């Protein structure tokens, strides 16, 4: 199931880019992936705790979005659309930036599906940064 989540470094980058949505898991200060036992309640309590005392920002923990959440974030917030496509035994990714008048796709790969997914996410982060 851990395959569903983006990695710590990318989770940190996404937070810096403004990702702030409820997630099923988070990374603790040791970069371990931990699942919320109840995402609704845990997320709310974490959120409320932060609001109650703005000096407490729950340090060193970062929500861990699913890949699909991360890609949706780029799609909806930055109009950056991506796809992962099979090519012979491997996969490549493609990104289109619909903010630009001429949206020539950016391609990358060829690699295993999960590697292509990660490479695509890194490229999306790089584009927005």
């Amino acid at each position, binding site marked *: 199931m851990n395959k569903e989540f983006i990695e710590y470094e990318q989770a940190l980058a996404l937070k810096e880019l403004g990702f702030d949505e409820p997630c099923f898991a988070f990374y603790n200060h040791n970069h371990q992936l931990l699942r919320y036992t109840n995402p609704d309640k845990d997320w709310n309590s974490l959120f409320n705790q932060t609001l109650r005392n703005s000096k407490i920002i729950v340090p060193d923990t970062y929500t861990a979005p699913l890949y*699909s959440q991360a890609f949706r974030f780029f799609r909806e917030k930055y109009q950056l*659309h991506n796809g992962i496509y*099979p090519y012979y035994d491997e996969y490549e990714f493609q990104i289109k930036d619909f903010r630009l008048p001429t949206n020539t796709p950016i391609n990358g790969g060829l690699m295993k599906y999960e590697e292509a997914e990660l490479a695509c996410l890194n490229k999306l982060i790089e584009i927005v940064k």
Partner: protein
Amino acid sequence: MNKEFIPYEQALELKQLGFNEPCFATYSNVQEAGIEKGSLSYYEGLFLPISSKMFCLAPTYSQAFRWFREKHSLVHEISWSKYKGGLNFDYDVFSLVLPTDDELGDEDDIASDKSMETYDSLVDKDFRHHESNTYEEAELACLIKLIEIVKNK
């Protein structure tokens, strides 16, 4: 976060096709006090559930697509295009199992040349009749197609 999960109807079909992997959420299979049949609940326990009569596992779209990829060698893609100022989405499905030499036919036939091997679409295209207005619509249409392909195998 509910957008991440496939709908109840498709979750039931995936179960019939043999999907039984840990999920973050379940759909209720029964009508109980205060709980509607087919309602989604995030799983609260320490260990993620496996299937039961009381509930149906609720995979995320990415789990479902991974399952089709790894178990049935079926890959999908969601594509997009600009149309009348907006975006349109479409999907396609490919089998990673390439045709055998027998299926390819005559050796002299250009299609039998191994260097020309490509994945053929399993979706009959009638000039982009699968177009959807949102990514989520295309994702669901694609999932329904994958289920249909495996059912008809």
